[in-house]
């Protein structure tokens, strides 16, 4: 920790923002993120380079160093969206987020860009549940069309359009800095299906968690900004498969987290498991 504070080159209050597979610490006006020592440094370097190429959309990094064998990235600290914003006067910047994603999806992918890490998250979430998966989740996972399970994980050629996607977008992945909003966290950034970036809010909405008005603001702004992931006349044509996949991922993560914390599944988790039951019973998208 002392080493991380030192490499930040910054002074000020120290806050641990996240301590999971990665350790994220804020030191004054700078955020440092330490990866596990087995992190793929080539991919990390490629993704930091992508951030620089997309310097008006993704918050540009300040540096990459090694601390005790672990790769560490250094970032300017932005102001995140907070739970208070859900009911506060400023509200949630759904439109700004949608416009940033639409712009990202419209940029040409540089040659040699890595593949998006989004779909691998679904496989990891299922692996975390192990053999003891609730039957609804296992059945919904088995019902997913093959491309959603392995989408862009296997062949680069499948993506003739070579669209860049964030790969893990949620409200914690947007910050205000220098008077405007930016996307943050390039860890899953890469070539993939852009609908994947809309699939998490789509899954929240479909499971009755996100109010229809908020979903409409987000999707409407994305379409208005000429985002290419969905068709204007029938966005669910492209959203259905990835939203099913994200519903399974979110349900699996909710169950695994509740188990880990030794508590019963909360209402949001229950809503997602119910969606899994309906996904397993529904026709293929």
């Amino acid at each position, binding site marked *: 920790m002392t080493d991380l504070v030192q490499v930040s080159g910054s002074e000020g209050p120290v806050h641990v923002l996240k301590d999971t597979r990665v350790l994220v610490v804020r030191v004054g006006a700078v955020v440092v993120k330490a990866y596990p020592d087995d992190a793929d440094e080539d991919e990390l370097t490629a993704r930091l380079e992508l951030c620089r190429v997309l310097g008006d959309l993704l918050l540009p990094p300040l540096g990459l160093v090694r601390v005790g064998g672990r790769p560490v990235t250094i970032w300017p600290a932005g102001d*995140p*969206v907070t*739970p208070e914003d*859900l*009911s506060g006067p400023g509200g949630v910047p759904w439109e700004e987020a949608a416009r940033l994603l639409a712009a990202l999806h419209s940029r040409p992918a540089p040659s040699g860009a890595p593949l998006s890490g989004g779909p691998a*998250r679904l496989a990891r979430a299922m692996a975390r549940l192990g053999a003891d998966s609730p039957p609804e989740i296992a059945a919904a996972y088995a019902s997913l069309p093959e491309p959603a399970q392995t989408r862009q994980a296997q062949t680069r050629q499948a993506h003739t359009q070579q669209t860049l996607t964030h790969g*893990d977008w*949620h*409200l*914690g992945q947007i910050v205000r800095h220098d008077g405007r909003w930016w996307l943050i966290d390039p860890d899953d950034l890469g070539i993939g299906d852009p609908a994947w970036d809309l699939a998490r809010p789509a899954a*929240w*909405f*479909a*499971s*009755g*968690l*996100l*109010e*229809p*008005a908020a*979903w*409409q603001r987000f*999707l409407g702004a994305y379409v208005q900004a000429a985002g290419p992931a969905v068709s204007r006349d*029938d*966005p*669910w044509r492209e*959203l*259905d498969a990835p*939203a*099913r996949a994200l519903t399974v991922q*979110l349900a699996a*993560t*909710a169950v695994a987290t509740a188990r880990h914390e030794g508590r019963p599944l*909360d*209402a*949001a*988790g229950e*809503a997602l498991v*119910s*969606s899994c039951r*309906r*996904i397993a*019973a*529904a*026709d293929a*998208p």
Partner: protein
Amino acid sequence: MQCPKCRGNMRTYDRNGVHIEQCENCRGIFLDYGELETLSRLETQWAQQSYGPPPAAPGWGAPHHGHHQRHRDRGWVGMLFSS
């Protein structure tokens, strides 16, 4: 305040947070800065709630009810902000 049109006496009303002056003589209405925009916004919201079609949803989706309470549900709020 006097009506700028007929010099009649203006009476102040507060309706849904909008401050309105109405002339007791000619019934003309005076809006403060930004209040026309506030009214338009309220009108749009109302129209959307009343007439706007609900957004399309997949067949496997949940019926939308009870989502108001979810704002206070810690599990749901956490999910909005984490992977």
